[in-house]
């Protein structure tokens, strides 16, 4: 039931957003595919940062343990906050890249 509720809820709000976009804001449907592709790309970069953070975090923790003999828990990287910060990193990086590439003005 939880699953159906969430899927129905987000399905309904997605349809509402589509209707507002088409009828109220007069957005062309043809640009929806391009927008979705850009969103996918942005999400990909965000996930790339997440994997990078995980890899560096794990390797850094293990190296720290080896080098100092002081215990540092690997569970620090197993924190949902890391995903949120990684998403932010990816968003900023992707928009920086786009802004640098697209002509001004």
């Amino acid at each position: 039931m939880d699953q159906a509720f969430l899927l129905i809820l987000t399905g309904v709000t997605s349809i509402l957003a589509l209707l507002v976009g088409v009828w109220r804001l007069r957005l062309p449907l043809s640009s929806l595919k391009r927008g979705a592709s850009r969103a996918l790309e942005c999400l990909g970069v965000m996930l790339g940062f997440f994997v990078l953070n995980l890899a560096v975090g794990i390797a850094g923790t293990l190296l720290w343990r080896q080098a100092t003999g002081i215990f540092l828990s690997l569970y620090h990287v197993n924190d949902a906050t890391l995903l949120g910060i990684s998403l932010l990193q990816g968003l900023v990086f992707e928009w920086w890249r786009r802004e640098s590439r697209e002509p001004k003005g």
Partner: protein
Amino acid sequence: MRWERLWQSVGMAGIVVFFVSAFSPLPNALYRWSASSSEVRPADAIVVLGSSVGANGVLGCGSLQRAVRGITLYRASEAPLIVFSGPNLTGVNEAQVRAELARALGVPSGAILVEDEAFTTREEAARIGATLRGRNLRRILLVTDPQHMRRARALFERVGLQALAATAESAGAADTAPEGRLSLMRETLGELLARSYYHAAGYL
């Protein structure tokens, strides 16, 4: 163009993994596949592995479940000795908090041992193994969660103990809500990663 394609593919893979993890029974199936089941028989000692304790002295969910499982086994006379493990990472000694809980629930102080200097499962096996072998105790009931059991058991057997699994089940294993399944997936992948690391490092 290649940049776009690459990251679009990663993004799509992320979405697929997210929806499959949240809305399909895959996390529950992976959990069952990676989990061990209990084989409780009388032993020389019960060993309750560490988990977590808050800075306010309250045991984490997993820690409490393991401690209660160990105490229940002791009260059922499955072993005459119970070892609580758990270091002091937050300013509170997890093993001591569990020992106090056990005493409050009727376990005599003389039947309790505390190991509070091991930080990893490997260190727990080495330190507790040495203590128990020194007392000529060889067969233990090992208490941890079902996913952690395979790695923990192998480590305890490597230090010369016969480890019988006494799993401390959590309600999350049967969770079918999307958030619960995402948590289950994260825990399962974390344990699989830990197993891979232990294999690569030659600990298993």
